[in-house]
């Protein structure tokens, strides 16, 4: 950490508060309530009060095992293209290739301090699953991952990575076989095994205290970036941009900037192919929860959701599996309502173009999730001021197969000639 000042914790936001304004809460089966209380207690003692040096050990392991701090890199060619200063926060360089390890390692370590014996987690794209499997192996804890059947089939390499790191992978056949169903099934496991198992939830979603706990582990991103930008550019940025699925990289990137009222915060969701919801079929061809969702309760929290007027949760869509979720973290819903965070969305085509553009111009292959933040930069850079920080939440190696297939089926300006691969 540099000597530049970091923000003091906001006084008006007691960490034991169960809600963020009207959002959050603990809408879970009674059987889980005692476990949530136990977790609240552990969160207070180990994370907030650094009891037994928990946070010191966490930071040390994130350095030695996780590769932190990550650089804040000036993107020279993007800066030129957009005629302003563009800085990239390189979470793609965290061990495992995404910000997900910040949270996974924090929670697995916390579970250890709590005396839990078993780790379970859901995964969508497989990024959180692989990060949890890595963290669990690193800390010698048995680990089971629930993953929707559709995701198992479209994210094979990540399934292998989890297996290689010694985790069990349990495919979930219910519904559309994606993240939502994986979370349901992990909650069911937890409701059965709660006494000795910790559920490492993968984003700032779920019942209190998960949204705060995950945010605090992820806020290392903004703690570093806020110092780095002041050191490298001499001032705070005009805008900070991050993609948002559940919103963990998002709040991680925003948290320390929230009190800086001169800094605009943009949460970029997946616009998919359209922003409309098909009420009859219960389908949303997007995951733009913050922009288009309505208030309701899903997976333990009151938040903005993609749902029918009757209250059934709809199937979301995005070309990027990690953003494909019908809910979003309650803290982001709150910050959007108060106007502190501006929601935006970028469609599949724009994200794919941004994927190719960053690969082409900067020699960085970004995750398709992160490509949404970069797509927004292309579309809205004129509104973002002279100094912009964009979070590259992950690297795109996991997405190559999807991108090759999607690139063939679409007319993308920024795509290279991929025919060389066919000959």
């Amino acid at each position, binding site marked *: 950490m540099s000597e530049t000042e970091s923000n003091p914790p906001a006084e008006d936001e007691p960490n034991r508060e169960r809600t963020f304004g009207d959002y959050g*809460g603990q809408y879970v*089966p*009674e*059987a889980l309530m005692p476990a949530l209380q136990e977790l609240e207690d552990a969160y207070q003692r180990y994370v907030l009060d650094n009891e037994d040096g928990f946070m010191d050990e966490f930071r040390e392991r994130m350095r030695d095992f996780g590769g932190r701090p990550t650089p804040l890199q000036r993107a020279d060619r993007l800066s030129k293209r957009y005629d302003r200063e563009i800085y990239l926060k390189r979470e793609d360089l965290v061990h495992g290739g995404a910000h997900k390890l910040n949270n996974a390692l924090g929670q697995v370590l916390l579970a250890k301090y709590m005396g839990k014996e078993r780790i379970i987690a859901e995964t969508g794209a497989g990024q959180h699953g692989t990060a949890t499997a890595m963290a669990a192996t690193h800390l010698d804890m048995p680990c089971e991952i629930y993953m929707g059947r559709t995701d198992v089939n479209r994210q094979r390499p990540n399934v292998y990575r989890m297996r290689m790191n010694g985790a069990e992978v349990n495919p979930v056949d219910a519904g559309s076989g994606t993240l939502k169903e994986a979370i349901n099934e992990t909650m069911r496991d937890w409701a059965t095994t709660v006494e000795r198992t910790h559920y490492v939830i993968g984003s700032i979603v779920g019942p209190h205290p998960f949204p705060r706990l995950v945010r605090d582990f992820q806020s290392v991103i903004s703690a570093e970036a806020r110092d780095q930008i002041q050191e490298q550019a001499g001032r705070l940025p005009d805008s900070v941009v991050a993609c948002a699925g559940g919103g963990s990289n998002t709040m991680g990137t925003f948290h320390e900037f929230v009190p800086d009222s001169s800094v605009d915060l943009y949460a970029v969701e997946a616009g998919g192919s359209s922003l409309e919801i098909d009420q009859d079929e219960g389908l949303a061809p997007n995951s733009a929860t913050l922009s288009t969702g309505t208030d309701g*309760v899903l997976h333990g929290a009151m938040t903005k959701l993609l*749902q029918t007027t*009757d209250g059934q949760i709809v199937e979301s869509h995005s070309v990027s599996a990690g953003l494909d979720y019908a809910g979003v973290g309650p803290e982001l819903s709150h910050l959007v309502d108060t106007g502190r965070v501006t929601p935006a969305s970028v469609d599949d085509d724009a994200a794919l173009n941004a994927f190719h553009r960053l690969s082409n111009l900067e020699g960085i292959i970004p995750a398709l999730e992160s490509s949404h933040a970069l797509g927004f930069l292309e579309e809205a850079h004129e509104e973002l001021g002279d100094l912009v920080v964009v979070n590259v939440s992950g690297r795109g190696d996991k997405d190559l197969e999807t991108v090759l297939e999607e690139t063939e089926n679409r007319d993308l300006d920024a795509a290279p000639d991929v025919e060389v691969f066919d000959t």
Partner: protein
Amino acid sequence: MSGEQTAAIESDIEAAIREDHPALITYITAGDPSLEDTKEYVEALDCGGSDLIELGLPFSEPIAEGPTIQAAINRALDAGTTPARFFELVDELETDAPLLVMTYYNMILQYGSEPDVRPFVERAADAGLSGIIVPDLPAEEADPLRDACDEHGLDLVFIVAPTTAGERLDRIMSQVSGFAYVQARLGTTGARADVSNATHDSLTRLSAYDVPKAVGFGVSEGDHAAEIIEAGADGVIVGSALVDLIAEHGTGDAPAADALESKARELKRGARRGGEQRNGHEQGREEAPEPEQP
């Protein structure tokens, strides 16, 4: 039993549990496989001796449910079951047993034109429902729904889990409305082959609380019902075992209704047998001191 709570007016649900004690509470998912079938099935369960009937209003993310009821919910949703049609069905039902709706909180919140629990409760009262059970609503989040239920004279039934203890247990047991839904084991709903040790532990732990207690999660046979009632429960709740019968028989098939009715009879007989055995023990133990109040 709640006999001592003379100050409060006895609800339909409390009366039903007291009148034909020990009580059989049956559950099926509304709309599985169609709402017309549900009507017939509810009548069969009523004839078979159910003292209370729970109707599941299907929600797309049933996190407290095991595979059996998840599948029933999928069938019901595929058949186009909506809250509006559900209430139309309840409007038509005429049963001796009071009816409860079991659904997830989001379904209750979304019933009106904006997120608010009151329109749902109002419509439920209108349709003649006597109570609501919400598996994802712990006591801590229940104030708005409790207020609305109080206003309309509905019972809001809370679940007590094997992990519920200490101050929270006291608080939940002091606010029991209708009956305490005692979750027999950790995990999700689903028929099981035996009565868990957790059930016996829970009933022992809860024996000091003078409120009606009904045990659910895993109960599937008359013998289970007997064992649970003998161990101190006032009622048994059976869901997955009935849903399994519906799934086996398929749609528009009269034998499903017959099977439900005879299963209900078996369960009710078991409950009565358990009650007689318990009365036998209690008479033999007349000299024993009263358990202390917590």
